[in-house]
């Protein structure tokens, strides 16, 4: 008979990624509630080791985040193996655009996809709260495509010399671009120093100028406002009593696998992202719930969503100096608004400085080996022109069968099946794919011509970036797994927050939206507990 340990709290949050951090911080600040966080992975190195870890990554490609994944917890084609305290956002790029208002009502406006149960206006204050909590530096874009109720908490990251020239180039093609909003400090902010262009935001900012969830977790844990259990894998949720309430999360601590850990709480919050949220609900099947929890409508694991991209490198007659701040970019949202009457093609557009085509090389055009001064002379001869990197994420309407399922052929040491992922486009997006990608390439070519340049090369990334869904919001159990506040339709004290609840993936980096959703969901979660004085 295995040993059993019980941990009790008001709120049990499963997962410790960026949206879990948002929920925990908000509840800890605003409510009298004991909060337990359960994380399958390990703590990551403290910031005083980041400079050294960064150097080893630059030197050898060595991961700066050791032990940030757990065997065999992955799926085919998973975006990231990260499973650690802070999750994938320990090594995210820190790019934080908002979705467009149109994203929330594609059915109403364009007749495709599904409307969200909330509007952009509903989410606007939570977007702002997320921008404040993450510390976002941003520039107000044209208000008709970039509406916001409050200004950014920090001034924008300045446009580099290179980006200023590229902004002028884009303007010649009638593309209005501005500084990409980012969770990076343009000025000292809440204990974080200003960004100093170390330019390795992904995978590691050595000075903490970029937001990462440890910045939220460390003070919460140090002040004991949150009790975190690491290396602890929640295997299933247990239902009992009236209202089909969740009474426990049953887990195993990886260092004591023979011991069952039972987390008991008034409210359970699943914050496992697009993979592990649906995976836990499906793995909690049994008894009256043979298809898993919160799955009355059969939608758990469905409607996985994201966006593909088309990118290109453009040769331009400009003198740029690659390396000033390569990870910062220009952005525009003008193509996120579909012109009336056009086919459903919506995309963002970003422009970066690039060194592609300007690198040193070891043979000249005649094939002669280049060393020493000859190499330097050849290199300099090719620096009189510049390269711009352009990329557009385009919106994909997800099919219902874009899904996560359980793979019985691959199991954990405890016999739990691992997930399998299959992203599938809705027929509307599938049929428009070629047209969409051709339209974006045509835009790139128009921009190149406007600058007297040419496309060096272009390509399409075939995977769907910034994946989300699997427990999407809806108006009832036939259209979603959770309501607009993240509460599951089937279990009154079970919430899913963040990425998993997104209805669609838009055509822009999505982390800020996931955080805004989580903060809105935290409002509702908190209502069950008294306000802090």
């Amino acid at each position, binding site marked *: 008979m295995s040993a059993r340990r019980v941990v009790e709290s008001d709120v049990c949050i499963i997962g410790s990624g960026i949206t879990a951090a948002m929920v925990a911080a908000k509840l800890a600040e605003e409510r009298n509630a004991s909060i337990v966080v359960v994380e399958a992975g390990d703590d990551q190195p403290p910031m005083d080791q980041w400079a050294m870890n960064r150097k*080893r*990554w*630059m*030197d*050898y*490609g*060595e*991961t*700066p*985040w*050791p032990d940030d*994944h757990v065997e065999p917890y*992955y799926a*085919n*084609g*998973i*975006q*990231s*193996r*990260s499973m650690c305290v802070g999750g994938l956002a320990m*090594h995210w790029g820190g790019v934080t655009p908002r979705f467009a208002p149109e994203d929330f009502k594609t059915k109403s406006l364009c007749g495709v996809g599904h409307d969200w149960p909330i509007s952009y206006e509903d989410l606007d204050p939570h977007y702002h709260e997320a921008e404040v909590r993450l510390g976002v530096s941003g520039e107000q874009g044209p208000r008709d495509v970039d509406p916001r109720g409050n200004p950014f908490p920090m001034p924008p*990251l*300045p*446009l*580099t*010399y290179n980006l*200023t020239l590229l902004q002028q180039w884009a303007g010649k093609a009638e593309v209005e671009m501005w500084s990409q909003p980012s969770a990076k400090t*343009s000025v000292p902010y809440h204990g974080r120093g*200003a*960004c*100093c*262009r*170390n*330019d*390795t935001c992904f*995978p590691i900012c050595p*000075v903490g100028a970029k937001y990462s969830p440890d910045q939220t977790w460390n003070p919460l844990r140090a002040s004991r406002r949150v009790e975190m259990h690491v290396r602890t894998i929640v295997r299933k949720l247990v239902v009992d009593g009236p209202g089909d309430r969740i009474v426990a999360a049953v887990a195993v601590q990886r260092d004591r696998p023979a011991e069952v850990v039972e987390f008991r709480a008034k409210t359970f919050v699943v914050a496992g992202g697009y993979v592990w949220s649906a995976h836990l609900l499906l793995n909690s099947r049994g008894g009256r719930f043979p298809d898993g929890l919160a799955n009355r409508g059969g939608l758990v694991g469905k409607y996985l969503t994201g966006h593909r991209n088309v990118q290109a490198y453009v040769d331009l007659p400009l003198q740029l*100096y*690659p*390396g*000033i*701040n*390569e990870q910062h970019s220009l952005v525009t949202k003008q193509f996120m608004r579909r012109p009336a009457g056009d086919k459903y093609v919506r995309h963002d557009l970003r422009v970066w400085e690039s060194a592609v085509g300007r*690198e*040193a*090389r*070891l*043979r000249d055009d005649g094939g002669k*080996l280049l*060393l*020493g*001064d000859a*190499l*330097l002379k050849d*290199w*300099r001869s090719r*620096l009189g022109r510049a390269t711009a990197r352009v990329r557009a994420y385009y919106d994909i309407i997800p099919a219902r069968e874009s899904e996560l399922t359980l793979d019985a052929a691959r199991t954990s040491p405890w016999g739990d099946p691992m997930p399998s992922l299959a992203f599938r486009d809705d027929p509307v997006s599938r049929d428009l794919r070629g047209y969409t990608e051709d339209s974006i390439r045509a835009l790139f070519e128009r921009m190149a011509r406007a600058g007297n340049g040419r496309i060096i090369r272009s390509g399409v*990334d075939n*995977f769907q*970036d910034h994946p989300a869904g699997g427990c999407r919001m809806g108006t009832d159990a036939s259209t979603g797994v959770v309501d607009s506040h993240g509460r599951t339709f089937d279990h009154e004290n079970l919430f899913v927050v963040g990425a998993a609840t997104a209805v669609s993936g838009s055509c822009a980096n999505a982390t800020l939206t996931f955080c805004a959703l989580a903060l809105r969901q935290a409002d509702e979660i908190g209502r069950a507990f008294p306000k802090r004085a």
Partner: protein
Amino acid sequence: MTLTRRVFLKWSAAVSAWLGTPRRSAAAPARGAQPRAPGLGPRELGPLAEAVLPAELGAAGIERATNEFAAWIAGYPDHAELLHPYGSDRIGHTAPSPVARWTQQLADLDAAARAAHGRPFGACTISQRTALVAAAVDPLQRGTRVPGVAGAPHVALALLAHFLDSPAATNLAYERAIDPRQCRPLAASPQIPAPIRRGSGAGASQ
């Protein structure tokens, strides 16, 4: 990296040949020396660096680049976990250390120098050394692309690749203090990077 006696002796022999000096005791490294791969320290790599790096770097710049490459070799981790990529479930690891192969290549260069010029590689003129390196590297280098350091087919290309990946190389090529991936004031980013003086050792800000 596991340093077997057999490998160590091979290195030791190669170093002695390279320098044209009496063999040092394998068991008696210099006091205060940094941990490093025997045979691939700054002293052994210096003559090679002069042959493959741009002379415009100057003696100080070449010495710095050589020291940094030697430190890279000394810190090389066998089978260290790599950063896992987006969109893939694959976990990769660093390749086995190239040190033994590179050490042999140094010895081969030395043998070629003795055959062609009757003296050790380190005693040849820079142009003689550059020609010897070119002859050794030409058959190994495919295409124009600079290889990754660890995967370079020859130690000369590894040294060159390591330098070309540095802020100093970018500064040298553009003749501007761009200092990629160095901590620099954000407020200066809208400005065109300041010029550096040609022949100043690339003005490599560290």
